[in-house]
């Protein structure tokens, strides 16, 4: 199959996601309101409770709002990843996922295109959030607005493919609500999004390890460092490994020979 065919297909999938995004304005606003509530209310309340020491990539003491901003950016991507996989479960129940899967273009390409389309939408949301967050004096160096981009692509891919894998394993839409609770909240709270890992280690060693091995921590920290135009090798390698694992799992999940789609046929 010629390269141009793949390009047209990719363009079509991204365009469809962008159109859906434009048509569903409430999705855009709710994606923005959620982190802004955390920033405006939660962070304001907790800034006096939680003191944050000087930790890389920061070179000075920072307000709590500045600390949690990368976590909230990752939260936007986490919700977006789960939401687009929720739409995949919905699409599958409604049938529109089938029209994509019966395309002659290889399935792995279709799924990765769909993931990247979701990442593209999440990046638009992140930049809108960063714009509003500047009102809270969350202003990274100018270069940070550019260097954050690769980190957003990888973390978006990781969280999206996790969502896609979950969507392949879920039989019905109703079950997905449960997974949202069991995935989103534990991932978010057991990470470095709201408090630095050393603080957690002071309280509980086992919880520290849970947070340390939580893929979401790798997304948060990759975003944190890239926002200040720095790279942390440990987190970068970690996020790449997690992305690869979730991508393989999600592609296998939608593979007609091995995947869970067949098992769902019996429902």
């Amino acid at each position, binding site marked *: *199959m*010629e390269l*141009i*065919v*793949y390009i*047209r*297909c990719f*363009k*079509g*999938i991204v*365009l*469809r996601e962008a*159109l*859906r995004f434009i*048509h*569903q304005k409430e999705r855009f606003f709710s994606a923005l309101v959620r982190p802004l509530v955390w920033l405006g209310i939660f962070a304001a309340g907790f800034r006096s409770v939680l003191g944050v020491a000087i930790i890389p990539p920061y070179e000075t003491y920072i307000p709590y709002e500045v600390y949690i901003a990368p976590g909230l950016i990752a939260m936007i991507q986490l919700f977006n990843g789960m939401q687009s996989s929720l739409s995949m479960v919905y699409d599958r129940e*409604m*049938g*529109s996922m*089938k*029209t*994509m*899967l*019966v*395309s*002659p*273009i*290889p399935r792995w390409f*279709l799924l990765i295109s769909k993931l990247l389309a979701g990442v593209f939408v999440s990046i638009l949301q992140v930049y809108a959030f960063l714009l509003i967050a500047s009102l809270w004096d969350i202003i990274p160096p100018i270069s940070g607005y550019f260097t954050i981009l690769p980190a957003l692509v990888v973390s978006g891919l990781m969280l999206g493919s996790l969502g896609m894998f979950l969507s392949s394993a879920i039989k019905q839409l109703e079950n997905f609500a449960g997974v949202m609770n069991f995935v989103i909240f534990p991932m978010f709270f057991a990470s470095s999004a709201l408090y630095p890992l050393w603080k957690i280690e002071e309280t509980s060693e086992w919880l520290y390890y849970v947070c340390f091995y939580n893929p979401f921590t790798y997304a948060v920290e990759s975003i944190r460092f890239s926002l200040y135009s720095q790279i942390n090798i440990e987190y970068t390698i970690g996020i790449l490994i997690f992305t690869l694992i979730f991508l393989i799992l999600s592609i296998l999940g939608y593979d*007609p*020979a091995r995947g869970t*789609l*067949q*098992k769902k*046929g*019996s429902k």
Partner: protein
Amino acid sequence: MTVALEIKNVSHNFGDFTALDDVSLNISPGDFTVLLGLNGAGKTTLYSLITRLYNNNSGTIKIYGFDVRLNSVNALKHIGVVFQQPTLDLDLSVKENLQYHSSLHGIASSEAEQRIDSEIYRIKLNDKIKSKVRSLSGGQRRRVEIARSLLHKPKLLLLDEPTVGLDIGSRQMILKHVKNLCKKDNLAVLWATHLIDEIDKGEKVIVINKGKVIESGNVSKIVKKTRTKNIREAFNKLVGI
């Protein structure tokens, strides 16, 4: 002679449940073939195997000579599908839905524009091209799905219970449209249904029950063989209702 769809000894299980049991059938270009069976007979499973949503555990499925499992790219190129469930994106316009489908088949946008216009004209929905799918009636949505399934110029059209839930007028219009396509474009059509009144006298029928093909042939042959008066009686006798 070219065979549009060739299914040989296909069986499929979901756990302990046998959904299809040693199914074999052939469809030639230009054939309008009705796959007749009650709900749960295995029609949708068969469609899922032909379109490679599931892999067949046993037997072979070939589309114009291309094995669906071994050469899915070429096999799927030739298939147009209308699924039982509605599959259009309700929040997008008719045109946007059709453009999306064209891109999934790698059709260039200028070529897609022409094909969309001509298919929309054929289903007489030119005035609805910019309307959101949500605003269309059930019958109109089905017609759009048929138009969509033809955009990449398939040679085999699979329709799974396409008229369920539609009023008589829409049903007749869709049936007539597909039968015309069959004649004009030499399209092979497999039309799954449980609605017996959709079958005309000279047509080929495959009766499926509990995952098995229990009879196939022209309506007159099946009626004669079952010693009944019409296809309805023949079907009732064959499936034991």
